[in-house]
Every structure is written in C-alpha cells, then in structure tokens.
C-alpha cells in the first residue's frame, strides 16, 4: 500500500462541506455525528450544519453530559454511545426468507436477502474507531467464512477520519496504541484547528486513492510549516489530556493466570449484567440467529446482536455454563483484553472508554485491570 499523508492541505469549513456534497453526488449515504436527545449519535447527515457545532462532552465512569463550548468546532467532543459498528453490522439484519409451498412435497424456496443499499461514507471517525473497524473486519472477513452482509457494506465504505483533539476522561487510546492520532484505515484524515475568534480551519490529507480523488476536486492551499506545527500541538495536547491507561505488557498471561482472582467477586457485586458495555463497545461482535414467522408459509431468519452477559448465552443441554454474574463479567473482560489476542492476533480493546462511560454503576475496565495486575499472585512482566 502506497504511503499517503505526506501532502497536507489547508481547507475551510466550506471546502469540507464540498467534500460532503461530492460524496453525496457519488451516491454515498453520509453518516456523521449529530445531537439527539442530549447525546451525540451517528446518523445520516446532509450538511456540516447537522454536526454538533460548538458542542463538547464531559464523560466519567457512569456519566455523560453534553456541554456548550465557546468556539464553533465541528468535532469538539470524544466518543459517543453510538459506534460505527451499527452500520456495518446492524443490530438487526435479515439473512434470508424462506417460503414453504402449500404443496407439501415441493421443497421450500430460500430467498437470500440481497440488498442494494447505497455505499456508506462515515464522517468524523476517530482513531480508536478506525482500529475498531479494522478489528471487526478481521473478525467478520478473515477466516474460511466471511459475513456476507458485512462484506458488502464494508466493501464500498468511505471513511473521513478526524484526529481527536478533545479526548474525554474515560479515553485511554494512547495506552492501547490506537490514538489519538489516526495512522491508517481512512480515505481522508482531517485535523480541526482552532483559529482564535474566526472559524476553525482544517488540515486534510488523503489515505487512499479514493481520498486523493476527492481532494483533487476541492479548493485548497498547501499546509504551511506553521499549520503543521499547530496540528502537532493539537495532537500533543490531546495526548496530554488522556489520563486513564492500561498496561498492556503481558496482559494476556495476566488474565489467563488470574481467572480465580478474588477481584472478580468484588466486581460481580457491582455489575448489573445489563449488557450496556457490549452494545456500546465498537468491537463486540456477538450475535444470534432467530427465525421469525412473517405470514402464512413464510419465515424470515434474522441475525441480531446478542451479549455474553445474557444468562443462557453459552450453555449445554444441562444448562447455562455461566450462571453467575461473576463468570459473565469475567468472560467479557478476559475475552476483550486477553483471549481476543489468541483468536485474532490483536487486542479487542481500542481504548475508546465507552464501556466506562456507559456502565450504569461506573465499572472501569482500566481500574480493574490495574488492580488485578498489582495483586496478581503470579508476577507478569510489565
């Protein structure tokens, strides 16, 4: 893959809008952040004015608030309760419908749902979420079988990424090696730079040939040394704002060696098994298949999100294998941070902090990992 990004350009909000327009003209469904019911969510957007202009967020364990900023940033916030996975891997997706002819000796007819949806363009993807998309690509596409629905959506995907400038208190991408600066996996990468009393301006670079094509069409100037320095400052300031961290050295062995650590009991007393963390996590991929009767003689099979926190998620005919909340929380956390590495070669966690923010009782995965590491009877290198 050719190395892009050496050419950085400076544009204004107007040119950014024209990029959005160009994508829409090409037939993309443009999805971006917007405010809805006191949260920033990802929905279809028409223009940059749909974005949370001058809106930031305050996040902590179990808490999420929007706040008004004193500037006109488009991307002045961190993660949201939505992740991009809901568009590539929808919460509910029809796999096929099957029609049983009234003549009983005639075989059933299976109609695979082949949808011709417009290609998707994600606007404003953070580095952590870029890594999350890469992880789900590995889960759903690499291996002897791939998820056909995911593949068709991921194939035409266009990503306009954004370097994170205002990480929240729950972010810990830097210790996971996934940010705040975006390194790869995007078609275009934008950094929003404050400009005193004027509107912010943007540095933009291409990350693919498709991105290059779009950039070629817009008005821009070359980024100056000063611009590049300002961009560097934005990123360094972002890094400084990240206080939470996870030590990842030997983390797989750490959890494999501590499956019976007493801390799990402590966490289990707080965990409600509500499954919020699995729904907001951008890499969680568990699902189930259900058959739904639609009308006489016709049944549909759907794939829907599932969560390892449900009681019967894993069972044998003798019953649930993980009856206790302890075992289910342990399953989620050790899968995310440890066994995922054995399964897919990389960690399942991207440090976006959503699970910390959206846990109703504020369980903090970084805090728990640190406690287990500090009190592990088996010493793990760090």
């Amino acid at each position, binding site marked *: 893959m050719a190395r892009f990004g050496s050419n950085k350009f400076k544009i204004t909000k107007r040119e950014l809008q024209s990029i959005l327009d160009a994508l829409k003209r090409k037939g993309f469904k443009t999805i971006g952040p917007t405010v809805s019911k006191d949260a920033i969510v990802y929905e279809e957007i028409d223009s940059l004015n749909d974005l949370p202009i001058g809106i930031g967020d305050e996040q902590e364990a179990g808490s999420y608030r929007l706040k008004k900023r004193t500037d006109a940033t488009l991307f002045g916030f961190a993660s949201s309760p939505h992740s991009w996975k809901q568009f590539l891997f929808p919460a509910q997706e029809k*796999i096929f419908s099957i029609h049983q002819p009234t003549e009983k000796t005639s*075989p059933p007819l*299976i109609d695979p749902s082949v949808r011709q949806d417009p290609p998707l363009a994600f606007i404003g993807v953070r580095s952590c979420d870029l890594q999350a998309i890469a992880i789900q690509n590995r889960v759903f596409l690499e291996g002897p079988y791939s998820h*056909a629905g995911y593949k068709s959506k991921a194939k035409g995907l266009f990503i306009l990424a954004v370097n994170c400038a205002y990480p929240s208190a729950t972010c810990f991408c830097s210790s996971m090696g996934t940010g705040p600066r975006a390194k790869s996996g995007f078609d275009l990468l934008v950094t929003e730079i404050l400009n005193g009393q004027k509107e912010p301006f943007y540095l933009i670079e291409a990350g693919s040939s498709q991105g290059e094509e779009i950039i070629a069409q817009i008005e821009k100037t070359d980024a100056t040394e000063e611009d590049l320095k300002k961009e560097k400052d934005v990123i360094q300031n972002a890094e400084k704002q990240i206080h939470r961290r996870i030590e990842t050295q030997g983390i797989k062995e750490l959890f494999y060696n501590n499956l019976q650590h007493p801390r799990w009991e402590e966490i289990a007393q707080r965990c409600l098994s509500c499954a919020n963390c699995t729904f907001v996590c951008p890499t969680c991929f568990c699902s189930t298949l259900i*058959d739904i009767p639609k009308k006489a003689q016709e049944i549909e099979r759907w794939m829907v999100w599932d969560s390892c926190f449900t009681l019967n*998620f894993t*069972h044998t005919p003798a019953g649930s294998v993980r009856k206790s909340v302890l*075992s289910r929380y342990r*399953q989620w956390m050790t899968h995310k941070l440890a066994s995922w590495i054995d399964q897919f070669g990389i960690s399942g966690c991207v440090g976006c902090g959503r699970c910390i923010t959206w846990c109703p009782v504020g369980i903090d995965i970084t805090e728990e990992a640190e406690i287990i590491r500090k009190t592990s009877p088996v010493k793990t290198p760090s």
Partner: protein
Amino acid sequence: MDHLPDFPENPFIPKPFVIEEKKRESPSVFSLYLRPIDQLPFYFLPGQFNMLSAIGGGEAAISIASDPTNPHILIHTLRIVGNVTKALSKLDKNDFVLVRGPYGRGWPIDLVKRKTLILVAGGIGLPPLLPLLYIAQKNKGYFKNLILLYGARTKDDLLFMPLLYKLKAEQIITLHVSVDRPSRDWKGQVGTVTALIPSISFDNKETFVFSCGPEIMMRFMARAFIQKNLPKEHIFFSMERNMKCAIGICGHCQLSPFFICKDGPVFPYEKIEHLLTVEEL
C-alpha cells in the same frame, strides 16, 4: 476503502434436505435419514457437525452420524433437549430439514491408522463416533484394534445396540457396555463407563483415545487413561456448546480462546486440560 477479501458464498444460507426416514431410537432420541433435494453427495469428515433446523424452528448444531463412505444419505441422531430439537422431532418422512455444513475440526483419523483406537462414549455421545465404526466396517484393518467403551444411564438409553453387537460379532470392535442404573432385564455391566478402563490392556505408544460424552465423564476418563500411562497427546475429546453461526463469529460457543465450532469440536486433551476445571469458564 481499498481492498477487501472476496468470498463468493453466504455461509448463512442453508440447503433443504428431505427426510427419507425417521427412526425413534429411545424415548427422547431419534434419527433422521436425509437426502439433499439436489441429490448431490454430501461429503464430511468424522467428528464434524451440521446446523439443522425445521423451517421456522431455529438452528442447532448436531453431529453427523452417517457412514462417510456412503455420501448419499446423511444421518443425524438427536436427543430432544430444547425448542429446536423439539421442532425437528415433530417432522416426519418427506418433510424438509434445512442443513448447513459440514463444520468443525473432526477426529484425527490419520493419526490412528493401524493403531489401537479406544472409543469412549457416554449417553448421546455415541453418534459422533459412529462414522469411525463405519470406517472400520468398510476398511477392515484400518485400525489395528478398535475398542468401544459405551456407557449410559439405563439400558433404555443405550443406542444402536443391534449395530454394535453386529460389529462385535464380525470382530470389527471389542465392545464393553455399562449402565449406571440397573434394571431387571439388563444382564451386563453396571457402573460408570470409566470403571471399564482399568481392565483393558493396551500398548501405550500405539494407543489413542477418542471420547464423546458429558464433560465430567471425559475428564475422569482422561485421568484414568493417564494413570495407565497413556500419553496425554493421545487423548481427544469432542466438546459441546450451543452454537448459532457455526463459523466463529457469533461468540456463543467460546471456551476461553477457543471457538468450539471452528477450533473444535474435537480437541486434543492437552490443549484444553487446564480449562476444564475452571468453574464457569
């Protein structure tokens, strides 16, 4: 985005098979003899499984119990344990079953060519081992010795006894059967299947064990063989968990890092030994 891998098929689309025959094996166990509507042969490896569903009944993972050398008829033996198997049990001859597969890692049959193979089956764990018995029947001499230790709760839970006695009479297998609960008309051994192990003798270097049954049975069985100095690497289990996608992306069948559907269901004992005694893993 640039490049993504290209796979032509949708792995979630099943194929309709027609039920040629249905047999009741015991009060809660029945067998389906299936033929695909397109009449194509169905090839599989012993130890693999299919996802089966009655139309609208949801899918379940069921081991393939047919003869691998006869790919024209697909046999599944199921116990009724939940909604999916109940829906399948209501089907009859000429009804249709949706089949997806075959999936999973099967028994390492190359490893046991011309060796002594001891099969240990508990309860409904016999069907996944049947393909091996058919191989022995059709390829006399494939195994140097084939021994079957088969245990069940009661005499009424024993499956395929006529077939097993026939294979015993034809000297294809050495058969040891035991039931946990006695009954007036059972004249055979009474006790757990693992109690049959101390009395069989074998050459450790040339002997392998394939086992399928309740996890607790397999754990104690492995220990009994290891106590007789059988190398750990010679023992293989077929594990069971609920499955939905069968291709390692729905997450249900995980046992620590392993997906039972694609890393198994057959596992070398030494690979999973340390996981079997962790509660609720």
